[in-house]
């Protein structure tokens, strides 16, 4: 079975697409490295290789979790299966 996306930790709210792309509406299969679990998420938009999709509903100003840690803040609401990148997430540091 193809792995479409990978997440590092069980607590992560984003996963990384590891196939050429996932298509809008596609049921994407994901591997959670920490627990070796498999999950399925419906991608709402097309997401290319290396880019992220939301594994849960994220609200504006929520902390994004990856590697089990804080990697930034959402600057808009992001639905589960949505595309997560520089248009809706910013650094907290600079």
């Amino acid at each position: 079975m193809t792995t479409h996306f990978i997440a590092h930790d069980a607590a992560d709210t984003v996963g990384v697409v590891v196939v050429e792309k996932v298509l809008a509406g596609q049921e994407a299969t994901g591997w959670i490295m920490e627990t070796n679990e498999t999950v399925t998420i419906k991608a709402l938009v097309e997401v290319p290789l290396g880019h992220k999709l939301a594994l849960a509903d994220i609200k504006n100003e929520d902390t994004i979790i990856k590697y089990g840690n804080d990697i930034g803040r959402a600057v808009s609401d992001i639905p589960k299966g949505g595309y997560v990148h520089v248009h809706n997430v910013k650094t907290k540091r600079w």
Partner: protein
Amino acid sequence: MGNSQQSFFGFLRENGRVGVRNHVLILPVDDISNAAVEMVGHNIKGTLSIPHSYGRLQFGADLELFFRTIIGTGRNPNVAAVVVIGIEPGWTQRVVDGIAQTGKPVSGFSIEGEGDLKTVAKASRKAQEYVQWATELQREECPLSDLWISVKCGESDTTSGLGSNPAVGNLMDKLDPLGVHLCFGETSELTGAEQVCANRSSTSEAKEKFLNTWNAYNDFILENKTNDLSESQPTKGNIAGGLTTIEEKAFGNLQKIGKTTNFIDVLEPAEEPTKGPGLYFMDTSSAAAECVTLQAAAGFTVHLFPTGQGNVIGNPIEPVIKLTANPNTAATMSEHIDLDVSGILKREMNLDQAGSELVNITVRTANGRHTCAESLGHREFVLTKLFRSA
């Protein structure tokens, strides 16, 4: 451990260090000696000239770093002998003396009062003597603990944090117990993960040194920045590859130190380690050529460079091994990639296997296999400058 290599074949130097390459270096003290250096390099085949942009009117900490880097480059065990050329005799001799401490052959020539042509004639004869001497040196079998390995990632993307960086980390976890010297750096690129990194110190002294170093760099960035550093850090290449914030990049970066390896000390830029075998953190820029130049100057002899989007850097002194977990990069930029670990993302390869393959190619490189960067002629030598000249 998963692989049987416990030794490699290297050049045993006068001070007990072991080199994996055997360069005769033509080294300029300053930018105006570059022409003479290149003339010598052209006259005598089998030499390595490294022109650079600085060495004049620097002062204070910037000058100290400059000398540490230039002298360290000459001292590196991958260098058999050095011809130093400078505009005047004082700083030329300082560089010669610093290199001579290792016991290797080194000579200095200065241009004032002589002119380029007379200087080049004398320096060329010395370079020829060194090349003929160095080319008769033979490799000897040495334990893996004689390898000093530096690491830095570049043009990272999310595959770096998923595959290529953890593969490097797996190598560290395998080699640290064997007594190998290891080095990582990129101070600003740990922003977001600095507390987690600090907790990977083996002593409270190392932890404190690390946090002081990171805080100083962070203060400098906060003082000088004009925006949120979008496109500078992370770079446009990082962003195109899917990395969104510096925090995300930092946690990916940190995967390079594996799961069990802790750092034993913190080094100034280009500072040679003094606490024996183990992992060191060096305060460096996150710009690839600057970082590897500093690590080579501290005496590291092989470099591992995981890349996502395809950084093509090499170094004149340290062979730079490139690995990637990005299947597009492995396919479109294959002439640059020594090890493809994209199988990790397809779950065709696990981290232990990737780490073993990386140890394998590291030993092959140490034994003489030219890396992609070497064969393509990538020799980026970039000095870190702390502030303007006087």
